[in-house]
């Protein structure tokens, strides 16, 4: 049978990280290096001067083809703490509205001496297209960081989730991690699954109704549960996913109320997990839809720490990329 070679486009010929596009295919040493480096950056954020000169003179372009002030801000803070110049382009409004194609926009920005593109796009795979294009035009000195593409990947979120888990649980091999909610449409879930697998997580579970689950999860090493009480049993980590408003009432789910009853994380359901289980959420939360306020604000929630860790992880990713 005819085959085609498919090199992982985020690694260079020596296997070093050239772009961060997905947690899938990231070798374990690369993930470990990112998490270790993030630990050092976490310390930087505690200093009087929360800044290191690593990326001085470099230009980081935030290209958000899909709006997300929150994510954009975390990347902006991370880049600024590395002393980079940050340019925010609200491409969702300007160029695309004028009929400029994605790659036209990229060509344009290349001429502005960019060193790094942080890309958010509503279509799965857009950052891969950009990375490929940069290679084609001989500008692979520019690094691409995927800040979320469609349903596909949100690798920095995945890595900060891994950082969080490692911070609280140290070793992955004996852990049971449950991801609950709209996995079908979630780039966070996909990034978590791949990273957990590479880190040797003991058991990975997905808990959701069939309408919110992609097929073939078993092939990714995931145990699927439809009953949350069963799925949460003896978990060490519970990752709750955001349920988008537009999916609450319609063909996928009858109502937010029924969803909360079945898949919302309440203190009673959380009690089925291990007593020291941590609760994570990529934010922003829908209180009373996927998570009860008493859990979100409770002692087991590490949701706000995820945000702090997120900045350090993004600093680590940008620092490592800029040096490769």
């Amino acid at each position, binding site marked *: 049978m005819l085959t085609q070679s498919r090199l992982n486009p985020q690694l260079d010929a020596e296997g070093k990280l050239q772009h961060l596009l997905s947690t899938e295919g990231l070798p374990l040493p690369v993930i470990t290096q990112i998490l270790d480096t993030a630990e050092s950056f976490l310390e930087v954020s505690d200093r009087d001067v929360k800044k290191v000169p690593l990326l001085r003179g470099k230009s980081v372009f935030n290209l958000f083809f899909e709006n997300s002030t929150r994510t954009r801000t975390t990347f902006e803070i991370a880049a600024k703490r590395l002393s980079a110049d940050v340019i925010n382009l609200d491409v969702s409004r300007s160029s695309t509205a004028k009929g400029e194609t*994605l790659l036209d926009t990229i060509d344009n920005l290349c001429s502005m001496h960019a060193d790094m593109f942080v890309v958010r796009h509503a279509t799965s*795979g857009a950052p891969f297209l950009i990375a490929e294009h940069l290679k084609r035009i001989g500008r692979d000195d520019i690094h691409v960081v995927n800040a979320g593409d*469609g349903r596909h990947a949100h690798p920095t979120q995945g890595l900060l989730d891994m950082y969080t888990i490692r911070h609280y649980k140290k070793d992955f091999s004996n852990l049971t991690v449950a991801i609950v909610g709209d996995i079908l449409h979630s780039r966070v879930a996909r990034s978590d699954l791949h990273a957990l697998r590479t880190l040797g997580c003991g058991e990975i579970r997905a808990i959701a109704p069939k309408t919110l689950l992609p097929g073939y999860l078993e092939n990714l090493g995931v145990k699927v549960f439809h009953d949350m009480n069963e799925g949460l049993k003896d978990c060490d980590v519970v990752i709750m996913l955001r349920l988008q408003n537009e999916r609450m009432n319609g063909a996928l789910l009858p109502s937010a109320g029924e969803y909360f009853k079945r898949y919302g994380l309440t203190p009673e359901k959380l009690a089925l997990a291990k007593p020291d289980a941590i609760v994570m959420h990529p934010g922003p939360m829908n209180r009373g839809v996927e998570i009860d306020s008493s859990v979100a604000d409770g002692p087991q929630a590490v949701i706000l720490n995820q945000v702090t860790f997120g900045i350090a992880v993004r600093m680590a990713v940008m620092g490592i990329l800029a040096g490769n």
Partner: protein
Amino acid sequence: MNISIKNGRLIDPKNGIDARQDLFIADGRIAAVGQAPAGFVPEREIDAAGYVVCPGLIDLSARLPSLEAELACAAANGITTVVCPPDTRPVLDEPSLVERLIQRAEALGLARVLPLGALTKGLQGQTLASMAGLASAGCVAFSQASQPVTDLQSLYRAMQYAATYDFAVWLRPQDYQLAKDGVAHDGEMAARLGLAGIPVAAETVAIATLIELAKSTGVRLHLMRLSSAAGVAMVREAKARGVAVSCDVAAHHLHLAEEDIGYFNAQARFDPPLRSVADRAALRFGLAEGVIQAVCSDHTPMEADGKQVPFGEAEVGARGLELLLPLVLAWAREDGLSLGTALARVTSDAAAVIGRSDLGHLAVGAVADVCVFDAETEWTITPDAFTSVGRNSPLAGRTMSGRIQAVVAGGRLL
């Protein structure tokens, strides 16, 4: 023009010939096989020693945005008959458009164009197109190309009307609703890459519906572009029950599968989508056993822009005229099939689908469409070497065999 083609390996699937024989052409027809007719004086002599001589290929679907360039490309690649789907601009729903298309193609003297007429006006799926007029103008069957008829009552009536005149209806078995948001096969690859899926059920539901409507209306039904193992099984079963249905597959679907999307390679976006390796194996088997009658190129040229966008926004399809023969040969070689069996699917069996007994074979009296090719020499697919618009191919870099040496179309040596 009198032409003799000598010393070649003559493969004529319909007439069961695979032997070293000479071929003689006169007045646009096959004049003799084996021995020259009495008094035959060739104006041109082709020495086909070491080459295969077979009927000119029939491609059941090729889009021809630039008529001259694409027909030249077809002819240069051994394809002497091209069925053109009606999703042209404008749509082939007026007899005058069809007449003009055929006249222009005839004037070019390259490959023959057999248009499919629109089943409904503008392919909108509502008002019947003037099928009788379109048929008189030269349409060989009626189709919606890739457009759906969402209202089954409209489809039912369109089939009834076509059946009145014994016109064949060629339809894509893909349920519009089940497929509407999807961009890739609803399989492991789509799950991993976060691409919206097109389930196999989109095909099986449509096949069931179309077969039932065909049985009920008595229309001759041809299913275009099967993509799944389940779809092939349904057609096999329907045929066993005696339903008059034929079907085809696109050549790319014999060689590519969902895995070829790799890291969002937009060149691998097709409609229907590339499905699993098991589906691909079933398509190959179905084609070998004859449940699927024909392979087409589903040639879809486009400007580079069409693929220079994220996977889910990319245009569907690929260039195919250059690759029809090589992909058929590769299939035969890989699956251990005789050249005769393989070539039948792009010659005589394809001719049967369009109901043209004078095409696709080399018996005396048949239209003199002949393809002479070197089956051995290997070459590498380099889309930049494609001569016409678009360089879109997901098969770039693969090694193929099958090099055209000479083509005779309607008795003219090209």
